[in-house]
């Protein structure tokens, strides 16, 4: 009887662990480098403490024509932080995997106006994200399609 109980508990534990690992695997599909439709930047999404964050890793025009120096976050509402470089800036913050193919509870920052919006990310297929930024309710917002950056395989 004791052995049966032990086997049962082992099966339950393995099933539970597999379920959590499968869910983590599903959520981690967001990790990678993505390109917004305007093509002006590339954003690397990574996981920090079970949440997802996206930082700019490439800019088509990295130099500010006014200053002739690398672009900085000149519209940051906090004046003291306006020297933060745009390359490396985390524009996506605090996303949690909440439902099938959807990450919510996060925000998106628009460096062109210094505004932060609520945001929902929906993965429509393995290489496409529907990014919806909004204020208040999701009905009043704007969507953009981001494509996964494919790393070319090395030629032998």
């Amino acid at each position, binding site marked *: 009887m004791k052995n049966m109980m032990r086997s049962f508990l082992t099966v339950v534990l393995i099933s539970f662990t597999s379920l959590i690992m499968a869910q983590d695997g599903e959520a981690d599909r967001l990790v990678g480098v993505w390109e917004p439709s305007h093509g002006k930047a590339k954003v690397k999404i*990574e996981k*920090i*403490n079970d*949440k997802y*964050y996206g*930082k700019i*890793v490439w800019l088509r025009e990295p130099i500010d024509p006014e200053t002739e120096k*690398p672009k*900085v976050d000149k519209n940051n*509402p*906090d*004046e*003291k*932080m306006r*020297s*933060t*470089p745009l*390359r*490396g800036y*985390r524009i996506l*913050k*605090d996303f949690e995997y909440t439902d099938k193919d959807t990450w919510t509870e996060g*925000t998106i920052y628009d460096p062109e106006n210094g505004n932060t919006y609520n945001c929902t990310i929906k993965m429509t297929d393995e290489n496409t994200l529907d990014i919806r930024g909004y204020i208040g309710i999701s009905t009043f917002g704007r969507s953009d399609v981001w494509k996964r950056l494919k790393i070319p395989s090395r030629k032998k």
Partner: protein
Amino acid sequence: MRKMRLPFILSFIMLLGLFSCTSTEQKEATLQLKATAQGPFFAGPNSLMAEYSINPADLFDSEGLKKSDIEEVKLKSVSIDLAKSDSIALDQFTSVSLSIVGGDEPMTALAILNPIEGSNTPLTLTVSEEADLAPFFQADKVTFILDWDFISDDYREEMNSQITLNLNAALKSN
């Protein structure tokens, strides 16, 4: 009529006395952390992490201080130093920034230095005027994220940095 007002006035004075017993005390503290990450690091922004378990009584050297007693925590200064054992020099970076994440709070930028000039250490960062760490100090654990912007293309070893935060806190005192 005057007799009826007296108990109300007395109650009001007693309530005032009760509330005046809880005041706010300003206290300073220094938090030293070691942020670390394993290479390889590539050109561009790379993150080092430092975890910190919140213990207000220990941090503010105040026995019996609870998390709920913390009303506001502002940054006075932030300085960063490279570990002497690491074989990388400051001229390998263009900028460095510090953020905090933890609990249910959104990730918050705390300090920035851009560009890094000269070779003197520790580096003194410009701190955010708006950031308040008090909500983070309600969590059990927070993570400080130190982003170094690398110039060099390839650094394969482990990297360590010392973070020193000088804090100014408003604490409830009874």
